[in-house]
């Protein structure tokens, strides 16, 4: 059953159950929209703070309604469709990037009591349920699938515009997002190995005793996940997709009014969902100390949002600090560093798991594993150097 382990849907499904599900969907939807609004404001405010500026300050207190004002403005603007565009695909593309952004959030547990093996089950209106819209057994694979569909949104938007800069942006984006998805998936795979489940609820429940995957997987997959995630989101320093100085606006150059707003919405929603996924996978999701027992229900969401907020801060901080990568540097980083590193770490974690099962000496496994990894790294470096020199000599021959 695709809706999976939610106890709400395991018994007989009556009207109350359906209403609870609808309520959860509504809350998740509204939460995401408000969160995006605040995230855009937060990003603009924080980045201006980091640049000694003031940032939005007119709309509402501290300019907090600036996003709303922008949204209203975009809503009333003329919606242009270029003459040479493929009209159907051009109209479809914004939704292809928006809908996956919404859907991914459905699998994120944002609350629930995970202490003492309770597996995050709460009781609402006399029904036991999970504080997430859906808990499919495929779990994180659903996230990977959705982020792949988001690539289509960007790619088709660029292609259907019938214009050269969007097309360049789209080609870049598909290459970038596909190659970084490999590293992203491999770093997530180590989490699967440690938790033994794909279900997000299961992954969070597995981290309920302070044994966060951040530590148990050895930090490296987390770092790879954050870097690959930033690239997947097309955020600086990996925003080659919409590199303003080179491509005007990249894939959304030809978009205006509400369709542009949808892309913008999807982009920032993806930032939030990516942060939520990272928190779920590596930082224990809503796990955290219950400080005041009488309001114990408030603490898991509090910890969850605190962790997500920390991620959002880091994303903005990255943007404020790092200049954009060159395209070949981007590809080098993805294919020659992140994918081999995440693959090697994945193998190391797998070996450690087997060592645990068969009672081998774990330090010997680690030593052998690290040795194997460094041999592999050396081989990789040697082959890259060889390929480079071969290419150089080839070019030299062609030139002379």
């Amino acid at each position, binding site marked *: 059953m695709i809706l999976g382990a939610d106890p709400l849907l395991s018994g007989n499904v009556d009207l109350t159950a359906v209403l609870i599900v609808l309520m959860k969907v509504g809350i998740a939807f509204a939460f995401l929209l408000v969160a995006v609004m605040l995230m855009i404001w937060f990003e603009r405010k*924080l980045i*201006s*703070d*980091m*640049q*000694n*500026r*003031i940032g939005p*300050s007119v709309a509402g207190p501290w300019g907090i309604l600036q996003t709303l004002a922008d949204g209203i403005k975009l809503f009333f603007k003329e919606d242009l469709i270029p003459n040479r565009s493929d009209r159907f695909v051009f109209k479809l593309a914004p939704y292809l990037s928006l809908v996956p952004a919404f859907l991914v959030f459905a699998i994120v547990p944002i609350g629930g009591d995970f202490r003492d093996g309770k597996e995050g089950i709460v009781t609402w209106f006399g029904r036991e349920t999970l504080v997430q819209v859906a808990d499919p057994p495929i779990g994180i694979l659903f996230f990977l699938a959705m982020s792949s569909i988001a690539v289509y949104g960007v790619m088709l938007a660029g292609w259907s515009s019938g214009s050269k800069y969007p097309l360049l942006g789209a080609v870049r984006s598909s290459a970038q997002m596909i190659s970084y998805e490999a590293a992203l998936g491999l770093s997530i795979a180590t989490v699967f190995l440690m938790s033994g489940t794909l279900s997000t609820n299961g992954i969070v429940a597995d981290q309920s005793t302070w044994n966060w995957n951040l530590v148990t997987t050895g930090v490296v997959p987390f770092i790879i996940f954050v870097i690959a995630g930033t690239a997947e989101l097309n955020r600086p320093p990996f925003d080659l997709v919409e590199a303003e100085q080179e491509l005007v606006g990249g894939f959304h150059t030809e978009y205006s009014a509400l369709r542009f707003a949808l892309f913008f919405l999807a982009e920032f929603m993806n930032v939030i969902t990516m942060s939520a996924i990272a928190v779920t996978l590596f930082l224990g999701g809503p796990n955290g100390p219950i400080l005041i027992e009488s309001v114990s229900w408030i603490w898991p969401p509090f910890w969850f949002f605190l962790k997500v907020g920390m991620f959002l801060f880091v994303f903005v*901080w990255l943007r*404020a*600090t*790092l200049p954009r990568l060159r395209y070949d540097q981007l590809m080098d980083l993805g294919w020659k560093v992140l994918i081999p590193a995440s693959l090697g770490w994945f193998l190391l974690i797998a070996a450690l798991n087997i060592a645990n099962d068969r009672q081998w000496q774990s330090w010997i496994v680690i030593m052998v594993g690290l040795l194997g990894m460094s041999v592999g790294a050396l081989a990789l470096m040697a082959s890259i150097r060889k390929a480079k020199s071969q290419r150089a000599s080839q070019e030299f021959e062609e030139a002379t």
Partner: protein
Amino acid sequence: MGYLQGFAVTFRKLWEKRVTVPYPENKRVKPARLHGRHVLNRYEDGMEKCIGCELCAGVCPANCIYVRGADNPEDNPVSPGERYGFIYEINYLRCIHCDLCVEACPTQAITETKLFEFSFTNREDAVYTKDELVVDETTGLPQHLPWEDWRPGEDLQTSAWMRATSPNGSSEYVGKVAWDSELGYGIRAPEDNKIEDGE
């Protein structure tokens, strides 16, 4: 760890003072020699300084000044001497605020204020007529027109150029008062240390 220093820089900036001034509410103090819109000055007895010689119009590189001189009415003269500026118009859609008209003026009748924050709603407002340019008859302050945004105090020191340099540009006149009195201010003291090396 050279990679992380950049993060420290951006993080430090969070606590630093903001450079931006929230503009329409707060304004920075403008430099003394800022070239804003013009005024037509008066002598201390209220007579206009302009003699309608059209030198300003002749020198204007943007062709934005239109002047017509006329003979002073004998019973009620507008300016001391024979002639006065009968029509005086400056088109601020063309003016580049180069200050050449101020330098050309033989009687220091036209000077530039520090006022520049206008928002016209039609082109006719952009053409300042003599009635709008001439300073107040008793205080010597420029008129506050409805489309101009300035606060009390920003209209002071309207003849910035004359006090900033000696009238003929020669360094021999530095520190010497070599210009006429102004309505509302009298003869002002020369500015110090504005031209540091004599030549």
